[in-house]
């Protein structure tokens, strides 16, 4: 039976009727809410391109059903910047050339958000470990690690 989903996404209220129970959260965000910054890369929870913050936790939205989002608070890549002020992680990816094609970047940034919550002062090995669930095919990860370390510095001094 189709259900109604009411959720807060990026601080805004959304109300969607007729949500199929089998609809994945990632398709709900993309196709129903128009938040296309969250990407699909593997369909099997390996690549992390679809990572969003779901009730304060980084989750892969391709393995969550949209109906689970009823009453949830979700942040997607579109909600990471404070209006026009980029989050230090967004700045870091830009500053350190932490992206090439950009497809994995939103998911990578969402995972890194959680990483920095858990480890405000991470070393390189920790960053690599924590980002193991996000695949990037362009960068070889080197500049992604740099970007996260740069953001950690910036957040500490803020």
């Amino acid at each position, binding site marked *: 039976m189709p259900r109604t989903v009411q959720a807060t996404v990026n601080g805004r209220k959304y109300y969607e009727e007729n949500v*199929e129970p*089998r*609809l994945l959260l990632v*398709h709900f965000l*993309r*196709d129903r809410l128009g*938040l*296309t*910054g*969250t*990407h*699909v*890369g*593997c*369909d*099997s929870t*390996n*690549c992390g*391109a679809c990572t969003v913050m779901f009730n304060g936790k980084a989750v892969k939205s391709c393995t969550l059903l949209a109906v689970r989002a009823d009453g949830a608070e979700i942040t*997607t*890549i*579109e909600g*990471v*910047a404070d209006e026009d002020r*980029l989050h230090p992680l*967004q*700045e870091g*990816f*830009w*500053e350190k*050339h932490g*992206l*090439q*094609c*950009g*497809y*994995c*970047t*939103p998911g990578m*940034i969402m995972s890194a958000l959680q990483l920095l919550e858990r480890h405000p002062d991470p070393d*390189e090995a920790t*960053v*690599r*470990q924590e*980002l*193991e*669930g*996000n*695949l*990037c*095919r*362009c*960068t*070889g*990860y*080197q*500049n*992604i*690690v740099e970007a996260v370390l740069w953001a950690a510095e910036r957040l500490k001094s803020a």
Partner: protein
Amino acid sequence: MPMIGQSIKRREDLKYVTGSGTYVDDITLPGMLYAAFVRSPHAHARLLGVDTSKALEHPKGIDAVTGAEAYPLAGPMPVYSYRQATAIKKPDYRCLAHDRVRFVGEPVALVAAADRYAADDVAELVEVRYEPLEPLMDPDESLKPDAPKLHDNLDNNVGLRIERQGGDMEAAYREADFVFKRRYRMHRHTGTPIETRGCIAQYNTGTKELTLHCSTQIPHILKTHLSEILDFPEFKIRVIAPDVGGGFGNKLQVPPEVVAVCLMAIKTRRPVKWIETRRESLMAFLHAREQTHDVEIPVKRDGTILGIKSHEIVNAGGYLDARISGPSLGAGMWLPGPYMVKGYQVDIDAVMTNKCPYGAYRGFGSQMGALVIERSVDLIARQLGRDPVDLRRQNVIKETPYKCVTGHEFDSGDYVAGLDKALEMVDYPALREEQARLRREGRYMGIGVAMAVEGAGWNTYTAAMAQHYVPTLDYATVTMRMDTSGNVKVLIGDVACGTSHATTAAQVAADATGLPIETIEVVEGDTAVTPYDSGTRAARFSAVVLPAVAESGMALKKKVCRVGAHLLEGSEEDMEIVEGQVQVRGVPDRSLPVSRVARVAYSEVATLPREIPAGLEATESFKAPVSGLCITWPYSIHIPVVEVDIETGAVKFLRYAIVHDCGVEINPMVVEGQVVGGTAQGVGGALLEELVYDEDGQLLTTSFMDYLIPTATDMPSFEVCHLQTAAPQIPGGYKGMGEGGCVYVYAAVVNAVADAIEPLGVEITSTPLSPSRILELLREAKGRNGGNA
């Protein structure tokens, strides 16, 4: 300050870090349908019937296209012929199978439905009857005289044969003290961009235009091919490549699926979107790399490598992809490496089997050529009791330009200096001591050295030569258009797929025009607004496209100066553009903002003399100055240091040093990103990734759970040293570099692992070096040595 040479931040990044990029699946058109393919579950079968009636009874099932229906509507998929190909036969490769299926995942029918999920439901209702046939998975089997033919119109199962030779191979054999022989094998794997394939086709019944949004590296070439395949006027086709989430050569493909989606759009008169799943992508997007080389290398006792001869077998899969000859030839042409050999010969057979078709992937075969020669140099060194670096130093080309036996002229660079630099970075003598010390402790550290010269920019495909080989030169055409407020759009016919074009082209355009970079923007990917171009391929952007940007920029500048000279009452030759001002050279007092000049050129035309044309726009072409196969010759030396855990078979990187020379660097940050990224991709290819089929032709690796692309913890920190020897024949001195790391890394990593476990009696001549494969090699060696490893 010149912009060329500056590591400025990328101009495309803001949209990506805020989630505002637009990839093809982010586009929704009014009335859009979703498509799903019905694919063959058999590796080889006769197609007895396809029944779509149940599918169309589904309330959301809008329409279906079968192979039988498509056959008269869409011609064969293209195959390029090289002049070098002594025989090229073309299997009848159609967008949907119509008589036989030849690999698991081959599209058989296409359905369109009202939404994404319904499309899958509807596809499941299509009933297909097959008569399974014996599959051929191994080229050796396909080549047997009594093997069944996979294509009736071919004489046998050889889809493509190329024979190449150069220099004097007979003399090489004559002078040799011994002939080194080995069989090398590289396994099947591929690029797997994180964004899979996808497109939206739309047919306008009023204008008779077909518009295709497609994740592709070749919008213009794709348009030309679609016109031929669909017998549709080319000027009525518009291809738009939006943001592309990685291409790596795979997206040079002319996808059969895209042809079928176009048919569906024409049939339904509605926009049709198709987005490939990862499972489909692993089964039916291009595969790559799988090759075998039977090699002979005549050698003198003093270590002189005299020549190289190989019989190369490519597992081409069920059909020939358009670019099959590229990676086949790419491997063959790179066999002599950066060494002074007398002779060379390669006989290439691309053999039909029941695997997914084989095509382009970053490096285009050259990594296999490099692996063969670099592995051989190490093994010959071992046989002669020499240090592998020492043997390289003896044989490497000492001076450039150098005419290689392949016919290529390596244009510039100092390979010995590059090698020395790389050795210095890792402190090679100290590493060898460390290795000896660790071995005494029972630890297995290995040092891999690989060097190669790489052809960047290929003089091919400039015309979409589907039918005949046409000798041609690569070229690029670029338009620069200044608007009425003095800002400039640079229109380029290729497309960025992580390749930073919006930044580097703007840097070159800024220097060519004298305009501030903030006033310049790059537009790519839309065939309706950009000049014809052969696409983002073969690392040609910096070697061919950017010189065209510079030419076009200089032409635009001249036009701005001409109008400026009239307004400032000076002579055109005395004008310059400095920081957005047109001024009399050296006299800033006599100047005008470019915006004022633009206003006059567009809006106050009556004030200009008749001979000055209205508007400010320039289009210029740059033709490759070199007529051989490749245009520029970057080179690189890779030295990875690894430790192999002989209990688990795991390979750990201790260091990874890279010296590379791609000529003058426009943006060193971008260059380093490409070098590191390409190398990382090859590390995955050498150690982890493999597309595995069982003997029935079923693909066993159909998700990223089985097909392991490297994660952040698999990767070392790469140390990169940039040399910059200007390309002598390219204005600006740029060489191509995007394939870069992916050419050298296989040879380097395999040599490192081999060096680590060589004391245990292991000889490595094949990839991948996954932990299980390494343990298997160790077990085999132990068996050979009677248990005394």
